[in-house]
Structure formats: C-alpha cells, structure tokens
C-alpha cells in the first residue's frame, strides 16, 4: 500500500471537515431562526467528530495525535480546500456552501466505502450515514429558498456564482491520484466531480437557480498544497488560542 498517498488523502479530508465544522459552529447563537441555529450546530459537531476520526486513522499510521495535528499546525501545513475556510458571510453563502460541499462529501464517502484500506472503508460507512442528514437538510432548504421570494432567489444565485469556482477547488487533483486509483484506495477526484455535478444539477433543476457554466469557470485550486486565502490563519489562531497558552497542559 502507498502510505504517502493514503496519508495525503486522509489529511485533506480531515482538514476539510475540521475547518468547515469550525465555520458551521460560528453560527451557534446567530442563526436566522432557532431551528437553523440548532441544525448548523449539529452539522458542526458531526464534521468535527469526523475530522477527529480521520486524524485518528492518521495517528494509527504514525502521524501525531489528533489534538497536536489540529491545534498546532499553521495554515501552509493544512490541506483543506479554500472553499471551507472562507468566512460564513450571510446565511445565503453558508447555505450554498453547505449544499455544494456536503453533496461532494456524500459522494466521496459513498465511494470510499469501497476503499481497499479497510479502516477507511469502515469509517466511510459511518460518515456516509451522518452525511445523509446533511444533504437532506441542504436539499430541503435549497428547494425552499431557491424558489421562494425574489430576494431569496437572487441572494442564493449570487452566492452560487461566488461559491462555484471554490467548489470546483474541492476536486483539485492529488499528486498521488493515479496511485490511489490503481491501488483502489479511492476512485479519484475526477470521478467524484462527475457524480457531484450530476447530483447538484438535479436539485438545482427543481429551483429557479442556475449553476454557472463549468467549462467557463476556473477552479480555485491551491488549498490541497497549502496555499490558502488570508482567512485560514486567523481561523487557526483563534482555534488554538487557549491550547497554545500551554500545549503541554491538559485542558
């Protein structure tokens, strides 16, 4: 088994879950209605929990403990896509991101249930079950708000236009793409992207929203190689503010 390829795959997924979980948790207390506040908080818990489980797989492969990995690295050492680190902005952007990202996650972990690396395949089954609720939630809201008022439609369309290049950044190919496919660890970003586009388009077709032309959109790549927007480092500084007071202390 190609351990370097596997680790790279695990790191980018774990980092994605951690950073978006963190962003989702920022909605606690600020949701547009109590029920949404609670829903984003639930998804935040799932995502941070999923990142923890993925970091544990890495730990079993010889990497440092989850707390150390999550709370002491700096932005260039993170492999998440830039999409997840962008600020929440208004609920429109957060909802569109949730829809686009979690649809990709649902497909990704569905594919990973077939991984030849058994611990990952097992974990993927569990995560896939949790993600079912995330996509159910996202699809319900996109259907409702995507064909409700003039304001809700124009807000979501603007958010979709802004988010789309970043969403395509999710599928930035790994340097190990061929090995991952060859060793049947993961069927690859290209296959994932195709299935994702189909699902996203199916939902959007039920609304007044339109997906920007994928052939005319340049994906925002870089995150997988540690190139991030100016938003990630401040997020990490905040996340580790207490932990760094004394990283050897137990909290």
């Amino acid at each position, binding site marked *: 088994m190609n351990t370097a390829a596997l680790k790279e795959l695990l790191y980018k997924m774990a980092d994605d879950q951690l950073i978006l979980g*963190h962003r989702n948790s*920022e909605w606690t207390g600020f949701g*547009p209605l109590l029920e949404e506040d609670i829903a984003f908080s*639930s998804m935040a818990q799932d995502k941070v929990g999923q990142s923890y489980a993925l970091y544990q797989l890495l730990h079993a492969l010889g990497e440092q403990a989850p707390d150390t990995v999550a709370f002491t690295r700096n932005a260039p050492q993170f492999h998440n896509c830039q999409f997840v680190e962008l600020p929440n902005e208004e609920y429109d952007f957060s909802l569109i991101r949730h829809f686009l990202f979690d649809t990709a996650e649902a497909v990704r972990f569905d594919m990973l249930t077939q991984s030849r690396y058994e611990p990952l395949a097992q974990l993927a089954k569990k995560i896939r079950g949790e993600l079912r609720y995330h996509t159910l939630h996202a699809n319900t809201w996109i259907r409702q708000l995507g064909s409700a*008022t003039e304001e809700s439609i124009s807000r979501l369309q603007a958010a979709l236009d802004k988010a789309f290049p970043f969403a395509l950044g999710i599928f930035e190919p790994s340097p190990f793409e061929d090995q991952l496919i060859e060793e049947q660890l993961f069927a690859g970003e290209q296959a994932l992207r195709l299935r994702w586009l189909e699902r996203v388009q199916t939902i959007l077709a039920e609304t007044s929203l339109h997906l920007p032309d994928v052939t005319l959109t340049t994906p925002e790549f870089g995150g997988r190689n540690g190139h991030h927007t100016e938003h990630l480092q401040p997020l990490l500084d905040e996340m580790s503010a207490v932990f760094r007071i004394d990283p050897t*202390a*137990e*909290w």
Partner: protein
Amino acid sequence: MYGGGTIFENIKGTELENEDPGQLAAFEARIDRGEKIEPRDWMPALYRKQLIRMIEQHAHSEIIGALPEGTWITRAPGFKRKMALMAKVQDEVGHAQLLYSAAETLGKPREQMIDDLINGKSKYSNIFNYPAFTWADSCFISWLVDAGAIVNQLANAKGSYGPYCRALDRICAEESFHLKYGHHCVIYLATGTAIQRAMFQEALDRWWAPMMHFFGPSDNISAHTETLMRWKVKMATNDDMRNQFLDMYVPKIWELGFTIPDPNLRKNETTGRWEYTEPDWDEFKRVINGDGPCNKERLAVRRIAEERGRWVREALQSKQNVYVTPLA
C-alpha cells in the same frame, strides 16, 4: 440552564377582581390537589400573564446565555472540549426552542417574544450581562451557572403548568450533562498548571457577585409572590434557592482549593443556613435595567441576527412554501 432570578412584578390587589369566584376556587383546588393546568383549561388572566412572563424570561435567558459560552466554541482547547461545548451550547438553544413553544401555548407568538427581547421590554437572566473573558469564565458558566439553574429548574418542574413542567423535565436531564462537563473542565484547571489554576481563581473572583445575584433579590426586598407561590408558578423563594445552591456547591469549590471572594461566607450550623455578605442589590438593579457591562452588546448581537435572518423567514412564509396538510 439559566432559569434563575426571574423578576416578578408586585401583584396589584385589583388584578383578581374580575375573575369569577367559583372558577377561581375550582382552579385553586386543582392546584392544591397537585393537578397540572393545561393550555385549554380555565386559568385566571393573572396566572397566564405571570407564566408567560416567567417562561419567556427563561427562553430569552437560554438564547442570550448561548452568547458568552458560544464565543468559546471556536477557541475550546482540544477536540474533546470543542465537541462537548458545541453540543452543550446547542442544547441551550434547543431549550429556548422548547420554552418558546411552551410559552406560545399561553397565546404569545415567538416572534412577538423575540421582538420584546430586542426592544428591551422583556428581561433575561442578569448574569449574562457579564463578559466571559477567558476559557475559565466559560467553565464557570458551564459548571456553576448551570448548577444554579438546575436548582431553580428542578423546583419549577414541580410547578402547576403542564407544558412548562414537561419542558423542564427534559431540560433538567440535559443540564445534568452540562454540569458534569463544566465540573470536569474545572477539575482540569484546578489540578493543572499554575496558569490554569490562576485562570479559574480569577474567573471565580469575577463571577461570584453575579452568581449571588443570579437567584434574585433577597426575600425581604423582593416583590410579594405569595399568590404566585400558592399557584405553583414560583416554587421557592430566592433566598431558599440561593441557600440550596451554596449548600451544594461551596464545599465542592473549596474542595478544589479555590478561594471564594467573600470573607463572611460560612454555614451557620445552628440554623443550617449560609451567611454571606449581602450582595449589592443596587448593582443588580442597575444591570438588569440596562447598565451592565454587556447589555448593549448582547441585545445588539440578537438584533443583528434577527435582521440578517429576516429574508430567510420571509422566504419561508412565501406562497410557494405554504404547508399543505397531507390528505392521507
């Protein structure tokens, strides 16, 4: 959490004059027998008014209380704390949802309650007008403010209004986990490094006075609540609840080696009651009337959240989204 220190108004002698004496007597007899009053049952207007006021204050306290702790979710040290704190604060917002629903059964819509919160007409637990400066402050809230709330809520769960009691039963079950979480966090600070210990001692110094205020003004200066106690709206006096809290938690704080900033605090073994320096009730009144360190910030955050979310709520009410009851 956060049910403590409800502020009741003095009841005017005239408020029961318009009630039918027969219905009133039957209502009181039901309460005496320990029956629960349900939404469609007859109740005096005053009972309805005071209950709405109390449940609404409780609900507001939950969402405002989510703010000082919520701000530490993004900074919680380590996975274990981060996940637990997220779940805890989410519970609190869930409690608000339950409580607004309980209050709605008495006829006041949630939107109106939230409007009254934002425009300053309704109150919430005074303690959340103080800032959570450090991680240890958030631990103080999770442990001791929740502990205080449990004292209050366990009493209220035995009250007379069915929907509120049922909400409280569920809330108390969740709160007991919060208490464990908070206590666990404080034990780690108490047994940790010098920095960690000092951090909690400072939090204790900051939060002790608001904690003593939490249960409301002492009985000899608080509003007359005999009628509300007879109707099982208010279940224990402020001083009794404060005493119960001190009885349960002062020994635990001392056990961890911290100093409570009140040289006069001691249990009088003869009376079985705690003695303490009388809290500064003028400060309490000043803060509850809007002049505390965080009143403006708390309401501003709530107002912004409401304004930013308006388009979402409007879209949900648009014609396309009208809920149609399924035929089968």
